[in-house]
């Protein structure tokens, strides 16, 4: 079986008229972009627009992505920006932004390996963090999360922030050990 091509190689091939390389980029990074758009609070229709917008931005920048090996993070960052623009569309004078030349460093957590480590780490957290993060990851609103956990509605947001902070600390400890 053929080794999967690395992202920089795929990007270069896509810039050189290779549709299969583009398709491979899509299958590798599309689902992450979808998750980013949905986490930003978009409906399915708007999330579809945000993801499509990010791919169109990549077409505009096929030849000048600053870090080709980080094209996955670039796509996640660009999807987030498109998603925020869609959310703000009713505000005057917010229709455009400068396409990011650099990616958000935090987008690296969407790398495939990190994603698996992340989920495994969630299962090691104490309650209520373990259940809370599982619930927010499965798209339940704060009200339902509060009901399931038996906690006041107002405490879900702050608890979520604390749990994510714990998770972040554990992940960075694991990275340090590795």
């Amino acid at each position, binding site marked *: 079986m053929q080794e999967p091509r690395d992202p920089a190689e795929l990007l270069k091939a896509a810039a050189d008229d290779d549709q299969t390389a583009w398709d491979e980029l899509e299958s590798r990074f*599309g689902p992450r972009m979808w*998750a*980013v758009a949905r986490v930003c609070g978009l409906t*399915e229709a708007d999330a*579809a627009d945000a993801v*499509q*917008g990010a791919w*169109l931005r990549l077409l505009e920048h096929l030849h000048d992505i600053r870090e080709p090996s980080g094209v996955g993070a670039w796509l996640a960052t660009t999807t987030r920006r498109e998603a925020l623009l869609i959310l703000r569309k009713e505000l005057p004078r917010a229709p455009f932004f400068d396409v990011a030349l650099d990616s958000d460093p935090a987008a690296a957590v969407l790398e495939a390996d990190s994603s698996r480590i992340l989920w495994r780490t969630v299962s090691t957290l104490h309650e209520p963090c373990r259940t809370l993060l599982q619930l927010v990851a*499965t798209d339940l609103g704060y009200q339902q999360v509060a009901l399931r956990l038996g906690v006041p509605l107002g405490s879900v947001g702050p608890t979520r922030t604390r749990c994510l902070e714990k998770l972040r600390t554990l992940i960075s400890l694991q990275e340090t050990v590795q």
Partner: protein
Amino acid sequence: MINDEYFLAALRLAAGNDPMPGHVSAAARDAYGLRVPQAVTAAPAESATPHGVRGIDGCQLVRFVAAGLTFDLEVTVGDGLIDVAGQIVPHPGEGTHVDVRTPHLTLTRRLARTGQFAATGLPPGWLSVVCHRPGHPPVQTRWVRIRP
């Protein structure tokens, strides 16, 4: 908060219960066919009328500039479809045509002497205009999202 969003996205991805719909994936793959080889990208620019602002009649004015050309687009969404009235200044020269593009439909128009063109009945969503002039690389506006 940026970090939280990517963390939550990674968790959602791993949870796997909101998979990306097939049509989103298909649209992304089809987008590859929209590239314009050698094109110069025209970036959004300030115009005398604040760009991107919706007028009282629902029209949106957007300006793009590149390669010495200014594209002024007046985009109107009515009855669920997009109408575009545009002008390119200065006139790019004899034999120029423009493609008014959406991911699923491209309408080709010759420029009037005034540099004006119009296209009607486009589906809402992403839109871009490409100017083809003999002897020069094409100039393509950035993609812009137009929805009611």
